[in-house]
């Protein structure tokens, strides 16, 4: 009986189960699953029904369009005097030209930091911070995200500033130089954080420099980004037919829509939005052992290969598989083994990219002491293989499904996060009722299906083992896992301006 049946089945609250032990003793036959007496008793608890479904477009959440076509999702929630506006602008790292890696990131920051044609950067900062409002843009792989957060009594002024920033950025040259200098400093410091270095090198190894996802901004690319590039970027991407907005918080729908119409509704752009082509990912595996030398007492390990994209029909089964492997916290196999049983790591887990427009990455990550590295790698490889070789016990799969079912409402507990999720469905071309049926799709995955999926998408022969750590000590220890290639990583030599 899974949690949902139980939850809806009865409305009786059984109290004080821990105190008595009769229930467990009466069970008699040995349980299929090893469980303590306490867990047995808790397993018999019946919870009052919880009537809940994800918020739906057309119900709690309304979808509208402004007269110029800007799509707006509205989710009023008047608990607190706060308003969030979140916008998605199609564009981002995927569209960066190779020689200008970092362009989307710089452009996103400069649309806001560079001031507007009517408000200088300093004055804009003064006004926003005096209102205790936050207005920021950032660039992801597929979208620039704009976020406005303020006390709702400042809504009118905040929306006006948002519109001004989106429509009329000035791209102040001094602010561009400031951002460039700080990014160059970030580049100089790239090695300092071993896990960040690991993630970047793992991505670069797989996507290569022939794909934007494999390219990190370099000194050359950062220096090549000009103010004209930012103006062209803005003209191409920031347009009403390429923008969606979601509002959550303290607002009256009609007044907010009127305000948005007034500030953004007459905005027009020539022709139709056209985005540059994005190169396909060459999903060529990179098996082997790769070492990045850092003389520190802890190794950062990533083991994995390519994942899938979000159109994959097996997406939910893959996600469940990853929950079992290392994505489900303390109860996943790799965490149980590498952390709890062997004491080899504090941070350990896995992720399997399934949500991108292009294939993501499958990675198991573990941070362990230098002399535990080989043992951790061995344990992880074992667990990866076991996913394919042995059927998943029904109890383990049921537990993962139960966890998903019972925690699903937290995906929507925060209204801003909830309405952003719904807007993202449209952005990604998924049906708007996606979440209404998602749990059913997870629940439909069987043990057999899970093993099929593991055999298809988990490929032990393709695994790249990438380690940031003390190369001198690691080289002999890791040689049994394959021939070692060193990824050169020298201390930064970024020129100074």
């Amino acid at each position, binding site marked *: 009986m899974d949690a949902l049946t139980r*939850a809806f089945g009865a409305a009786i609250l059984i109290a004080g189960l821990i105190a008595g032990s009769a229930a467990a003793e009466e069970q008699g036959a040995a349980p299929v699953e090893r469980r303590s007496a306490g867990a047995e008793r808790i397993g018999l608890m019946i919870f009052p029904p919880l009537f809940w479904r994800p918020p739906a477009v057309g119900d709690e959440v309304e979808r509208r369009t402004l007269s110029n076509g800007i799509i707006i999702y509205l989710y009023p929630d008047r608990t607190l005097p706060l308003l969030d506006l979140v916008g998605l602008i199609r564009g981002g790292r995927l569209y960066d030209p190779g020689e200008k890696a970092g362009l989307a990131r710089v452009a996103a920051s400069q649309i806001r930091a560079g001031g507007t044609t009517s408000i200088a950067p300093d004055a804009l900062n003064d006004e926003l911070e005096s209102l*205790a409002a936050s207005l920021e843009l950032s660039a992801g792989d597929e979208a620039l995200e704009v976020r406005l957060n303020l006390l709702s009594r400042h809504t009118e002024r905040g929306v006006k500033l948002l519109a001004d920033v989106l429509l009329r950025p000035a791209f102040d040259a001094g602010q561009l130089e400031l951002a460039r200098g700080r990014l160059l*400093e970030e580049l100089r410091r790239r090695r300092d954080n071993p896990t960040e270095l690991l993630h970047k090198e793992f991505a670069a190894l797989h996507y290569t420099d022939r794909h934007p996802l494999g390219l990190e901004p370099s000194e050359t690319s950062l220096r090549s980004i000009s103010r004209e590039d930012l103006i062209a970027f803005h003209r191409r991407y920031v347009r009403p037919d390429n923008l969606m907005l979601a509002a959550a918080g303290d607002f009256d729908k009609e007044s907010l829509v009127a305000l948005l119409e007034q500030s953004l509704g007459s905005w027009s752009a020539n022709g139709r939005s056209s985005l540059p082509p994005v190169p396909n990912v060459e999903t060529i595996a990179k098996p082997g052992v790769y070492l990045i030398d850092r003389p520190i007492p802890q190794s950062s390990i990533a083991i994995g290969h390519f994942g899938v994209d979000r159109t994959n029909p097996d997406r939910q089964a893959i996600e469940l598989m990853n929950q079992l492997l290392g994505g489900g916290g303390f109860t996943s196999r790799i965490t149980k083994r590498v952390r709890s049983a062997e004491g080899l790591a504090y941070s350990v887990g896995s992720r399997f990219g399934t949500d991108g427009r292009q294939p993501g990455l499958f990675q198991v990550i573990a941070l362990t002491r230098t002399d535990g590295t080989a043992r951790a790698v061995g344990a992880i490889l074992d667990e990866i293989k076991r996913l394919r070789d042995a059927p998943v016990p029904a109890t383990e799969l049921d537990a993962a499904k139960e966890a998903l079912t*019972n925690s699903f409402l937290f995906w929507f*507990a925060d209204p801003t996060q909830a309405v952003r999720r719904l807007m993202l469905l449209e952005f990604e071309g998924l049906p708007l009722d996606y979440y209404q049926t998602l749990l059913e799709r997870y629940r439909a995955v069987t043990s057999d299906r899970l093993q099929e999926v593991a055999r298809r998408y988990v490929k032990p022969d393709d695994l790249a083992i990438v380690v940031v750590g003390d190369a001198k000590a690691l080289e002999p220890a890791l040689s049994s896992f394959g021939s070692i290639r060193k990824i050169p990583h020298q201390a930064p030599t970024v020129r100074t301006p």
Partner: protein
Amino acid sequence: MLSTLIAYSVRAQEISLDVREHTLKNGMKVLILPRKNSSTFSAYLRFKTGSVHEQAGKTGLSHMLEHMMFMGTRSIGTLEAEEEEAILEKLDQLHRKISELRELERSPFQPPALSPVEGKDPSRLTALEKEIAEATAAHKQLIIPNEFWEIYRRHGAVGLNASTSRDGTQYYVNLPSNRLELWTILESDRMKNPVFREFYTEREVVKEERRQRYEANPGGALSEALIALAFAAHPYRNPVIGWPSDIDRLLRPDALRHFKTFYAPNNAVLVLVGDLDPEQTVRIMEEQFGSIPPQPLPELHITQEPPQRGERRASVRFDAQPRFMIGYHIPAMGHPDHYALQVAAAIMGRGRTSRFYRSLIDGKRLAASIDVSVSPLRDPGLLTVSATPRAPHTPEELEKEIGAEIERLRGAAVTDQELLRVRNQLEADLVRSLRSNASLAAELGNAQAMAGDWRYLLESRKRLKAVTADDVLRVVKSYLTIENRTVATLLPTQPR
């Protein structure tokens, strides 16, 4: 029941906090804030003990105990509680012997009086390790690892975690609102009957945590050096996670003793925020937690830091780019000057309008980042400036310019605009902290534990908003002095 449940509705600006306050008969403080915004609730259980309460040689014990609280209880996580206890005791003895042996080996002297058997005999260590491996293997037959986590997870728990700080230890989780009973059973069970199984494996996990946070992380290494130098006497000098040689020698009985001393219901604050019925919730709390006996808390003397009589400086060599931190001794949270120092810190370092940003990040472009923070500690703590210089500028150059900015602050009152901005931000911070059940529960619990009254959450904002330009000038002059500061600088090691 109704009569003991006192409802307070306090309004600050447009904010109303409908907190129901109740003290269980054993002295455990319970705060309930019903909110209908989602069918969930957040629980925050805090014990008023942290690393300040550790004895010399046992640093890291409160944090280790926090990890052990997730290992289950006499009825959760085990198939045979009695048999298990015998193995756990055996493992304790073996590990104690290992510790003694290592202590012996630590000595550079090899006393001639010691025969090899008593002295440095590697075979003894090997034999002990073999015994440990055998006992551990036998133990694994009896336990269900991570079952406590598993139960929570199955029931939809999100954000299950805990944290240890210098003054407090807190356990938190979010659950669907129909799981209150389950939460109460699990939490009261671990307060009554915890079993610190797999202690010695978890000790290795904690050592990895230490490596990750401090030994492989330049920022962590630097802050550890700064704090250890700024505090010569007060136990705040010790890292919460503990010094490596102390962690290595912590034993399960240490954690049990710490637990029995400090995890008393009368030393705990429980906050529940979410879709809950207050009357029913109090009834359930009384049923499950009420039977835990209260106990007298130890009389503790915490060494207080004597005044600093001159600048202190440290350097740390690390395979990383340079950065530095400056720490100034400041009074404890709740002291009138603490509010003015928070305002001063915001004027110096918060946002793109702050003094440091305008002058040193944007203006002179000497720094990539400068953060200013004020420690929220029960005893006098530090105001800390953390800075990363932008090449080719050096830490010395940036430090000098930060010093000059602080001189400017000491020389003239801050502007009305600066004050107004900080006040507005503080008000917005309060509203934003109420957004999620989890952050609201944590704020209420922290205020209750630190100030003895959750209303301090609102009161502190009032005090902050009352800070004047004169107050800022006064505290900057009295605390941000060269004699009162400690500077720690991280510099790159030579490439090998």
